């Protein structure tokens, strides 16, 4: 192997890469926030005994769990605009795909978390005169979320990795910037190495944190 590594193009283009990273973070954070928010409602519907809530929610979850994210993103970019009466840019398409995917997965985490709380907790809230959402907000969620936190953090890590898929529809996140720069500078090896290192530098500490959190929880309980 006499390949001579040359990272100069990476350094020269660091402003572009930084912009890409910024876009990655924007996309990831947006999808995470929206996904967790709407996931609660889908999860509550999946948990519900009412089949008019339960069945549509289940169909939604199964569709998004059993199709590749890459296909979802492409679909929202190329196919969705044909049935929807409005223009869709790369960011919107990527956000739709990744958010709905996060909704589907986080709703399962919520549902499992809700199921782990004893019925008596709901009953105690109800007997005090709480409405359904008061029981949820004051009694059930504070307990359930503690149990769900590690799963959510794992999901967040997955999501940030998936944002790189948005490069296929030319959304200017880190991966796409790298692709653009490498075709001009002819240095795909260094470029993608740099991208991998950047992702690793951000996500590795996060996973360590999750693991530490999980073990400290296991020790306590």
């Amino acid at each position: 192997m006499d390949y001579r590594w040359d990272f100069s193009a990476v350094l020269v283009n660091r402003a572009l890469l930084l912009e890409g990273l910024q876009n990655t973070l924007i996309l990831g954070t947006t999808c995470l926030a929206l996904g967790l928010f709407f996931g609660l409602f889908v999860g509550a519907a999946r948990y519900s005994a009412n089949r008019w809530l339960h069945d549509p929610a289940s169909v939604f979850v199964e569709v998004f769990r059993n199709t590749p994210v890459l296909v979802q993103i492409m679909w929202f970019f190329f196919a969705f605009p044909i049935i929807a009466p409005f223009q869709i840019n790369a960011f919107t398409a990527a956000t739709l795909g990744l958010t709905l995917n996060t909704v589907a997965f986080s709703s399962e985490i919520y549902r499992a978390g809700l199921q782990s709380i004893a019925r008596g907790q709901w009953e105690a809230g109800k007997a005090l005169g709480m409405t359904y959402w008061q029981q949820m907000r004051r009694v059930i969620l504070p307990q359930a979320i503690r149990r769900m936190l590690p799963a959510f953090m794992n999901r967040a890590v997955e999501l940030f990795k998936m944002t790189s898929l948005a490069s296929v529809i030319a959304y200017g996140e880190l991966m796409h910037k790298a692709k653009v720069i490498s075709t001009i500078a002819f240095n795909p090896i260094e470029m993608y190495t740099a991208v991998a290192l950047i992702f690793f530098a951000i996500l590795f500490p996060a996973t360590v944190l999750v693991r530490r959190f999980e073990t400290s929880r296991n020790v306590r309980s």
Partner: protein
Amino acid sequence: MSPVLRLEGLHKSFDNLEVLKGIDLEVARGEVVVLLGASGSGKSTMLRCINFMEMPTAGRIHFDGDLVGRERNGRVQYKEEELTRLRARVGMVFQQFNLFPHMTALQNVMEGPRTVLRCDARECQRRGETYLNKVGLGWKANDYPARLSGGQQQRVAIARALAMEPEIMLFDEATSALDPELVGEVLETMKGLAEEGKTMLIVTHELGFAYTVADRVLFLSEGRILEQGTPSEVLTYPKQQGTKNFLRGHGTFRLPEPQID
């Protein structure tokens, strides 16, 4: 004065199983009523219908003389908002305590006034402290339920129900999940409430407690009130064969009065 609670022809079925077959009952203000019956006779179901944790299949429930729900073509229809408001006026104590584990004892007691009654911070604090002191646990205010004994947890649960200042308290076997040595403190707390004039409807297997504290004892059998009267009438001189069998079962192993000085 109208009774706090009046049940008229209360029926409850689960699918094909008819558990309550027409219960008529009035509970006067300040009255302590104990409900006895064999396992599976429907005692819990009856309590849970009263605060609409279960929906009655038929019959009417009146609070303070007002019918709960609206009657149309002989059937009573209920609105969820009305039931929610009604539950706030009825205190319930469960066999399994069901304290909120993520809240301290004080926060548990303050939760109803805070979330349901929307009392201001000072009033929540006042009620929390008042009722926690009433059950003798003011000194445990900042402990989480996991750090309390079963008896203490149940007393906090009683305080939590009392903090709503309900018109009637329902107890569903409040001491059945407790170790024998912890039963006494909970019964003492309940006796204290009875002496203060709280209106109470109590399901229990503690016959001695029923005898001492009840104004009236009901015996539930096969979905109906088979017999009722003063503790002495029902517990000492039962008339119905069903009541006699039940009491005989409870008296199989009896201690002579322990000689303690």
